[in-house]
């Protein structure tokens, strides 16, 4: 059996794959957080709860309506995005003139409500969600066994992240968005409807979280607490990357997933804390974050 640094290759690559998958979720969630923060100047604490909602909507579509995975992958993010946009229009929009901390507190409250409602309805034991049959099974790569669904999650997340990045950096719509992030008043003076753009941006960020939720459903069990456990790690990822750049959020997400995976191989006791340790070190060396600008 092949070994690398005294670790069986099978275990090493297995953990690296797990790390890559976690990284895919970190990347999608921190990308959404960074987008929302850029335009709305709030940290969306309910991001984890909306991710959980994405997974639950997919599960409900399957169990109640019999709609399969591919339908859910389109419908669930749309539904959750509409829900998010309603929140933005009815509540968040009242806070833009106040201290940014109020946005954090409001979305924290909303996260508690959403999580509490799902816990009340479905308990805290997870609901299984089967891997779609097109993606079942796996490939034997010789040095490791690669389940097809996991490869699909990593691919899908990379495509989504890259697509979002291209949309923001290379299209006219993205140019408006970047301009509004720099100076919303001026962009509005040029005749662009900034409030609508804010709502759509929030919807887009939320949709990304919900897609991540649907992708996660067959890997982790669908359960009301899945979001809150993840979101705090994503916050640390965001602090490490700094929210200045979209690409930075994506790269940091994947990198930290890998770091976590490697830690699981070499020093498993620290696997759950390693990201926070990295955060402490980054705060010491580069307080603005790896890709952040000092404000």
């Amino acid at each position, binding site marked *: 059996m092949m070994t690398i640094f005294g670790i069986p290759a099978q275990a090493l690559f297995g953990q690296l794959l797990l790390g890559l998958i976690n990284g895919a979720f970190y990347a999608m969630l921190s990308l959404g957080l960074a987008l929302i923060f850029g335009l709305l100047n*709030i*940290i969306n604490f309910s991001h984890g709860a909306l991710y959980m909602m994405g997974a639950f909507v997919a599960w409900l579509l399957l169990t109640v309506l019999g709609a399969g995975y591919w339908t859910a992958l389109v419908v669930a993010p749309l539904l959750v995005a509409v829900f998010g946009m309603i929140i933005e229009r009815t*509540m968040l929009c*009242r*806070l833009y003139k*106040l201290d*940014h*901390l*109020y946005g*954090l*507190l*409001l979305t*924290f*409250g*909303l*996260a*508690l*409500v*959403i*999580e*509490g*409602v799902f*816990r*009340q309805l479905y308990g805290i034991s997870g609901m299984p969600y089967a891997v779609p049959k097109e993606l079942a099974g796996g490939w034997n790569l010789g040095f490791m066994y690669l389940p097809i669904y996991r490869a699909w999650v990593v691919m899908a997340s990379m495509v989504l992240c890259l697509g979002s990045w291209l949309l923001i950096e290379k299209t006219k719509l993205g140019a408006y968005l970047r301009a509004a992030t720099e100076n919303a008043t001026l962009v509005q003076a040029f005749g662009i409807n900034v409030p609508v753009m804010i709502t759509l941006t929030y919807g887009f960020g939320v949709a990304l979280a919900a897609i991540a939720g649907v992708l996660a459903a067959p890997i982790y069990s669908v359960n009301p607490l899945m979001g*809150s456990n993840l979101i*705090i*790690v994503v*916050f*640390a990822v*965001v*602090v490490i990357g700094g929210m200045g750049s979209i690409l930075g959020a994506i790269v940091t997400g994947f990198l930290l997933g890998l770091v976590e995976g490697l830690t699981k191989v070499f020093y498993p*006791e620290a696997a*759950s*804390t390693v990201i*926070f*340790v990295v*955060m*402490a070190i980054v*705060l*010491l060396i580069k*307080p603005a974050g790896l890709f952040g600008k000092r404000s």
Partner: protein
Amino acid sequence: MSSTPTSSGSVSPQKILVLALIVLGLIAPFGIYPIFLMKGLCFALFAAAFNLLLGYVGLLSFGHAMFFGFSAYVTAHGAKEWGLTPELAVLAGVATAVVLGAFTGWLAIRRSGIYFAMVTLAFSQMMYFVAVQAPFTHGEDGIQGVPRGHLFGLIDLNSTLNMYYFVFALFVGALLIIHRIIHSPFGQVLKAIRDNEPRAISLGYEVERYKLLAFTLSAGLAGLAGSVKALVFQLASLADVHWHASGEVVLMTLLGGVGTVFGPTVGAFLVVAIQNYFSEVGSWVTIIQGVIFVFCVLLFRSGMVGVLTPWLKRRGIRG
């Protein structure tokens, strides 16, 4: 100033209010379930410590549960495994919170605003994972059956009334300390930092030192609350280090009134009452707390005390 000058001999309405509250606190255990009162006092102290940071320095910490919970663990471990007397166990807990606060504060104050909130939350989550894995915390079980012991080797704290007066004395003492901090020159500088940090810097204050000291003091007082709670309930558990506890203390302060003296106490008793009332019915506590959060942020940003005080003052002027 057009108000009537108060000579040194006269008693201000605020002093009367404070004295009335102390008397109320002294006779309360004869009318109300003492365990509920002690729980309320512990959380009121926790919220007051948190408010010292949010209300007077403008720093929103989303990780105060780490001080509260870890002090509870150390006090419980000290009292149970090392056989410390209650006052020493509490001191050990507070010392832990101070050290932890100084270290995490030193890192966290490098960022401000929402980043500060996220950094403190992340460190608190890290300490939660440490608590899950470390052997001395006994994981999911927590440290149970913590002996209350004899205060100074003399007063038996197993008597509920003795325990209550011990908690009450610590609460009043801690609030006096906080009052003293806020009204000291140091406290004035803190408020200057809250209101206009660049200006405080340009006036030559080393803002980071002030922030760090305030953070450490707040952590130590939050630790005191956690230590006392561990003795009252004879239990230290993961729930005390969980981010839910950090969220609850934010809620108490917000509901009672950020930056007011009595606000956190009012908020703490309200939240504890809600917890007791709805504890039987599943996740309703979480839902209700979330709704109150949303309500407070949207419509009630000055909190109970923040709304009541101007109203009372207006009535006072008319009457």
